[in-house]
C-alpha cells in the first residue's frame, strides 16, 4: 500500500508476524507442553484434532450405512444371523459419535476455545484449568465410546430409549457413562464461557460491541449449563435402571418409558441448539466480513440467539408426538414449536440483508456461508412439516426426519464449521491455503450433500421408515442416488482436509488480517502470541470496516488509525475514553 493514500495524521497498524517465542504454537516445545497446557488456543487446537478424528470415524460409519442401503436387501452386512444387528450398531454409533463426540463440541469447544478469549480481548478463559479438565473429560468420554464399540457395540440408537435400552445385550452402560462424562465436559466449557464473557471483558468491550459469534456462544453456553445436567441425571437413572431395575423408566416395574423420553428430550432438544447456535454465530461474522459490509440488524441477531436459547426449552415434546403423549400436550408442544421459527427467520433475513449491496468476495469461507444459508433454509422450512402435528403423524420416523435434521446438522452446523475453519485457519496456524482447493471442496460438499439428502425427503414422504436395514425395491433408485451423493460428500470433505493439511506444509505465511475482519482476533498476529494481547486492545465496532485498507502488495488488509501515544501503564479510564472517541 502506498503511504500516499493515507489520510493525514493516520498510520498503518500492522502487528506483523510473531516470533518463534511469541507464537503460541511454538513458544514451548514437547508433547507435555501441549498435554498440560492451560492456553485456551492450544486446548482449542487439541479439541480440533479430537473432533476431527471423531468426525472421520462417524463419517466412515455413515458411508457404511449408505453403501449397505445401496441394495434393497443390504449390500455390506449380509450375514443372515448378525447382519441386521451389525447395521443397527453402525447407525447407532454413527449417531452417537456424531452427536456426543463431534457436533456438540465442534464449534463451541474447538473454535470457541480458540476464539472466545481473543475475540473478547481477554488473556485467557476465566478458568484455564477447568478448560483443560473439560478437554480431558472429552477424551475420557471418547474412551468410553471406544470401549463400548469394542465390547459389544451399541444398538439402541443414539437416544437410548427404554425399555429396549434396559434389556438389550449391547454395552449400554459403557456408552451412557461416556455420554454422562461428555455432558460434564460440555457443562464445564459452557460455564467457562459464560464467566469469561461476563467478567473478563477488557475496558471498552461492552455487550453490544461483542462480535455476534460471542453472543451465539453465550446463548449456547446457557443451554449447556441448563440442559446438560438433566441429561446427566437421565443417563444416571438409566444406568441404575439397567443395573438394578429401579422401575422409573422400566415398564416391567411400573415405570414409564414416555417419562424417559421427556427426560431425554428436555436435554436433547436444547442440544440441537447447542449444535446450531454457534453455527449461526459463525455465519453472522463470516457474512459481514466477506461482504465487507456492516452486519444488518446487529441487535436483532444478538437477541434472537438468546431467544432461541430460551425457546429451545419449551418445544422438546415435538420429538414425541407419536410416543403416547396426551393429545393436549402434543397440541401445546406443536404450537410452541412454531415460535422457534421466528428468531431463526430473523437471522436468515438479516444475513441476506447484510449481503444485499455488499461487496461480496467469493472466498472459500463465503462460499461455505452461502451454502449454509441455502441448506439451513431448506432444513428449517422442512422442520415446519415436522412441527405440525397432523403432518408429523405421517412423517414421523421416516427418512423425511433424517433428511430434515441432516440439512440442519450437516448442511447447517458442519458447513458453518468448515466455513469457520477456513475463515480462521490462517489465524490459527498462520498459513494460507489454496483458494481453488477450498472452493472446490465447497462445491463438492454442496453437490454431494444435496444429492444425498434431497432424495431422502422424497423417500420419507413416500413412507420409507428410518433405521431399517432393508427396504422395498421401489425405493432402490432414490437410495442409490443418496449413496452416490454420500460418497461425493465424503470426497468433498477429504478434499477440504487435504487442502488444509497441504497449507500447513506448503502454505504462504498468513498476514494478520487476510480477509478484512474488524474483530479483535485480526488485531493480533497470525498465529496469535501466547499472551494474546500485550495490553488491553482498543475496542471498536466489530463490524465497522472503514478503517481497513487492502494492501495489494502484500495481499492483506491493514488497519489505519490515528497516531496515538502509548501510555506507559494503561489506566483503564483513559483507555475507555479513547475507545469511546474512536467509536
Amino acid at each position, binding site marked *: 500500500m502506498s503511504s500516499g493514500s493515507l489520510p493525514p495524521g493516520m498510520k498503518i497498524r500492522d502487528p506483523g508476524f510473531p516470533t518463534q517465542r511469541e507464537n503460541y504454537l511454538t513458544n514451548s516445545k514437547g508433547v507435555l507442553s501441549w498435554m498440560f497446557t492451560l492456553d485456551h488456543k492450544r486446548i482449542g487446537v487439541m479439541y480440533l484434532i479430537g473432533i476431527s478424528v471423531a468426525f472421520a470415524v462417524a463419517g466412515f460409519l455413515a458411508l457404511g450405512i449408505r453403501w449397505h442401503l445401496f441394495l434393497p436387501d443390504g449390500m455390506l452386512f449380509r450375514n443372515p444371523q448378525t447382519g441386521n444387528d451389525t447395521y443397527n450398531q453402525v447407525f447407532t454409533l454413527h449417531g452417537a459419535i456424531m452427536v456426543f463426540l463431534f457436533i456438540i463440541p465442534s464449534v463451541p469447544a474447538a473454535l470457541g476455545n480458540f476464539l472466545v478469549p481473543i475475540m473478547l480481548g481477554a488473556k485467557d478463559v476465566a478458568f484455564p484449568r477447568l478448560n483443560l479438565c473439560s478437554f480431558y473429560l472429552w477424551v475420557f468420554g471418547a474412551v468410553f465410546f471406544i470401549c463400548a464399540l469394542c465390547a459389544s457395540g451399541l444398538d439402541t440408537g443414539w437416544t437410548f430409549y427404554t425399555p429396549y435400552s434396559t434389556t438389550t445385550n449391547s454395552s449400554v452402560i459403557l456408552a451412557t457413562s461416556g455420554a454422562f462424562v461428555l455432558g460434564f465436559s460440555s457443562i464445564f466449557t459452557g460455564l467457562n464461557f459464560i464467566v469469561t464473557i461476563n*467478567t473478563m471483558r477488557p*475496558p471498552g468491550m461492552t455487550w453490544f460491541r461483542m462480535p455476534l459469534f460471542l453472543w451465539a456462544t453465550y446463548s449456547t453456553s446457557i443451554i449447556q449449563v441448563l440442559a446438560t445436567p438433566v441429561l446427566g441425571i437421565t443417563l444416571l437413572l438409566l444406568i441404575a435402571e439397567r443395573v438394578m431395575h429401579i422401575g422409573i423408566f422400566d415398564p416391567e*416395574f411400573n415405570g414409564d418409558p414416555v417419562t424417559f423420553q421427556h427426560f431425554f428430550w*428436555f436435554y436433547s432438544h436444547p442440544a440441537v441448539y447447542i449444535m446450531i447456535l454457534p453455527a449461526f454465530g459463525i455465519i453472522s461474522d463470516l457474512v459481514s466480513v466477506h461482504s465487507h459490509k456492516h452486519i444488518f440488524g446487529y441487535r436483532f441477531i444478538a437477541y434472537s440467539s438468546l431467544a432461541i436459547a430460551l425457546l429451545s426449552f*419449551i418445544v422438546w415434546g415435538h420429538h414425541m408426538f407419536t410416543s403416547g*403423549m396426551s393429545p*393436549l400436550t402434543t397440541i401445546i408442544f406443536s404450537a410452541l414449536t412454531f415460535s422457534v421459527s421466528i428468531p431463526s427467520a430473523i437471522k436468515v433475513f438479516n444475513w441476506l440483508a447484510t449481503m444485499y449491496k455488499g461487496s461480496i468476495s467469493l472466498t472459500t469461507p463465503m462460499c461455505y456461508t452461502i451454502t449454509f444459508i441455502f441448506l439451513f433454509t431448506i432444513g428449517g422450512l422442512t422442520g415446519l412439516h415436522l412441527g405440525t402435528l397432523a403432518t408429523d403423524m405421517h412423517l414421523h420416523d421416516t427418512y423425511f426426519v433424517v433428511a430434515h435434521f441432516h440439512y440442519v446438522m450437516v448442511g447447517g452446523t458442519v458447513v458453518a464449521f468448515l466455513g469457520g475453519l477456513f475463515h480462521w485457519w490462517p489465524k490459527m496456524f498462520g498459513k494460507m491455503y489454496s483458494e481453488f482447493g477450498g472452493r472446490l471442496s465447497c462445491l463438492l460438499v454442496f453437490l454431494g450433500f444435496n444429492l444425498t439428502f434431497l432424495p431422502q425427503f422424497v423417500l420419507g414422504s413416500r413412507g420409507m421408515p428410518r433405521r431399517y436395514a432393508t427396504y422395498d425395491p421401489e425405493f432402490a433408485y432414490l437410495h442409490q442416488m443418496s449413496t452416490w451423493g454420500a460418497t461425493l460428500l465424503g470426497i468433498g470433505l477429504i478434499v477440504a482436509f487435504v487442502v488444509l493439511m497441504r497449507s500447513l506444509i506448503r502454505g504462504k505465511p498468513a498476514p494478520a488480517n487476510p480477509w478484512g475482519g474488524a474483530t479483535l482476533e485480526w488485531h493480533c498476529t497470525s498465529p496469535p502470541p501466547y499472551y494474546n494481547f500485550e495490553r488491553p486492545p482498543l475496542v471498536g465496532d466489530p463490524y465497522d470496516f472503514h478503517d481497513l485498507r487492502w494492501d495489494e502488495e502484500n495481499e492483506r488488509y491493514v488497519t489505519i488509525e490515528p497516531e496515538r501515544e502509548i501510555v506507559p501503564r494503561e489506566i483503564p479510564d483513559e483507555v475507555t475514553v479513547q475507545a469511546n472517541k474512536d467509536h
Partner: protein
Amino acid sequence: MSAHGHSDDGHDFAHPMPIPVLLAVFVALTILTIITVAQSNFSFGGIDVIIVMVIATIKATLVAAFFMHLAYDKPFNQLLFVGSFVFVGLFVIFTIGDSQMTSGDFIPVDDAVPAVVESAPMAGAE
C-alpha cells in the same frame, strides 16, 4: 471495566456476615425443622404437602439469602439462581402434566406375591 473498576485496593468486596445474624438464622431453621416434624403428627387432609413444602421453602430461602449471601450478592447471581427454578418448573410441569394425563398404574394391584419369589410373577405380568 464493567463490574469491577471501582476498587483499587480490592478490600471492599468481602462482606463478612455478622455472627448474630448467622446464629439467628440457625435458630430459625431449627425451629422450623421442629415445626415440620411436629406437624407431621397431625393430619391436615390434602394440604399436608403444601404445608410441608411451604415450610421447606421458607427454610431454603433463609439458607439461600443469608448463609449463601444471596441477599447481598450481585443481581446477576440472584437472577441465575432464581432463574434456574424457572427451568426446573418448565421441565417438571410439562413432564408431570403429561404423565398425569397418560400414565396409569401399569401393573394392576393383584401382583401381591410373597416377595421372596418376586421374579417369576413379574415375568408373568407382562
